[in-house]
């Protein structure tokens, strides 16, 4: 009671006061909006669509399978499927979305659309400064606003993006290997067929060829 507690407390606050001028750990204020803290690696705000190459329309990974539209709990995704197809990252022909709208005033950032997407096409963005005075149109993001490049994905979620890239590259390698194996098998089968048919068929083959001259 003799007052030493008070004096110790006052010494501590004096240390805080003096230290706040010199060391960063005693003054942890970040003066927003001049300074910003970088968001954490696994921060998530609203979804965005990933595209691979320079052209966002051609490289869009989304194939309009509409799984995310069905799984979204508040139903904030609206997808229109295309009539024609375009090749995806392994060369297979896929549909693509002609309209992909997300209403971010409804989206609750649950990440279910990311979890169910089989094509690694939709991922979570970290941008939160999306306030606008247009309550309806300004908060409805369309395909062009949602499409962001793979490089951007690497910037905001480096480890995740590397993992996704590794997986996609693996898939592609498998597909390429299969195609190559198929090609090799096909050429081998063709060569076999050619040698089988070539031997007994050569006299028959020469006559029509000669007859046609």
């Amino acid at each position: 009671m003799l007052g030493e507690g008070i004096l110790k407390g006052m010494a501590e606050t004096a240390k805080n006061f003096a230290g706040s001028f010199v060391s960063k750990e005693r003054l942890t204020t970040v003066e927003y909006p001049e300074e910003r803290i970088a968001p954490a690696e696994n921060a998530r705000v609203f979804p965005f669509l990933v595209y691979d190459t320079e052209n966002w329309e051609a490289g869009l990974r989304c194939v309009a399978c509409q799984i995310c539209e069905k799984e979204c709990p508040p139903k904030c995704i609206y997808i229109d499927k295309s009539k024609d197809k375009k090749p995806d990252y392994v060369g297979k022909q896929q549909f693509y979305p002609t309209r992909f709208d997300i209403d971010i005033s409804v989206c609750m950032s649950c990440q279910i659309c990311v979890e169910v997407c089989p094509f690694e096409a939709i991922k979570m963005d970290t941008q939160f400064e999306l306030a606008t005075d247009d309550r309806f149109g300004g908060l409805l993001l369309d395909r062009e606003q949602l499409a962001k490049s793979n490089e951007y994905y690497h910037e905001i979620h480096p480890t995740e993006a590397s993992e996704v890239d590794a997986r996609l590259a693996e898939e592609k390698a498998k597909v390429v290997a299969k195609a190559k194996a198929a090609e090799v098998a096909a050429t081998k089968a063709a060569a076999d067929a050619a040698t089988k048919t070539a031997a007994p068929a050569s006299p028959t083959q020469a006559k029509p060829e000669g007859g046609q001259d």
Partner: protein
Amino acid sequence: MIDKADQIFVLLQHWLVSFLPLALQQPAAVLLGVIGIVCVFPAIFALTTVFERKGLGRIQNRLGPNRVGPFGFMQPIADAIKSLTKEDVVPSTANGPVHFLAPVGLVVAVFMGFAVLPVGRNMVLVDMDAGLLFFFAMGASTEVSVFMAGWSSRNKYSLLGAMRAVAQMISYEVVLLLSSVAVVMITGSLSLTKIVEAQNQYTGIFPHWYIFTPWGLAGFVMYAIAATAETNRSPFDLPEGESELVAGYHTEYSGFKFALFFLGEYLAMLSISGLGTTLFLGGWSAPLSFLTFMPSWFWFFSKLMMSIFVFIWMRGTLPRLRQDQLMNFAWKFVLPFTLLDLFVTALWRFMGEGLLRWIVCSAILLAAYIIMGRVAMVRKHFGPRSYRYAE
């Protein structure tokens, strides 16, 4: 040259007054002094609010306000504009005239207290024989306006806050008065100018400030505690604690009336610090004998700002005291210790010069502090629960 810097305000006053005919010179001099007080102390109040917010921020590991002006020092101007343009909301069941007069009474009483503070050499507005008594009389008048504010709002919480504030102020008023009586005993006069002049002597390079004596140190500590409680300042700010009573007795005040309460509270803090400086810290006298070349008003205001800084420091450090803890502390520890301090002062006075009185007085005060700290502040022992039913 040094004298001129020291007396610059007095010379300015004389020069301005010399333009008037002789009959009007005395009232004009007083009027100039009043204008000086009304301009200087609210300016210090504005500075204090910024220092408080920035100081508290730094103590709490954050920046204070830093958007308005360089490092936020124009914040009081923004606050003034805000409080002037806010709507003046008066509850419909409130007592009109009393509700209006409460902040007025507070500010008037507090401003009157500045009239007797010796701000520098020859720089007192009114040099009264009973200056100290006048100051305390004005301090006592603030209690009535606090009560008026709380009662007229027709709000249970305001009334509770006002009652608590008044009870606290009365309890600590006794301590305030008794700790200053020790100073008066040694000086032999109630006049504040004489008290400062008595402290303006030096042995070697050390001044004769009363805080450097054992009874003076004890008295100063008690005075500081009582001053913190008188002005409802943390850790004694239960009457205006935001988490307990919304804002206590000034809940129902908005806009400029609230600004007047704020002004009144901070000015009371400034004037009580000024009195403490005058009584114990030597008023306008310099701390070391070779520093007397600096103007006297500079020393007074530096000591005042140091006291304000200590107030802010305490606010940032200590948690709030509960009402019963507060009152216990006042009546069971601070008051007996102050009475003992009076006795020790008398002992000091009549023991004659020398080392003996230093040792005896320090020993008595230290022993009493330790004993009373351990014995007098007995905690309530909680027995089995007893109930009181309303009749």
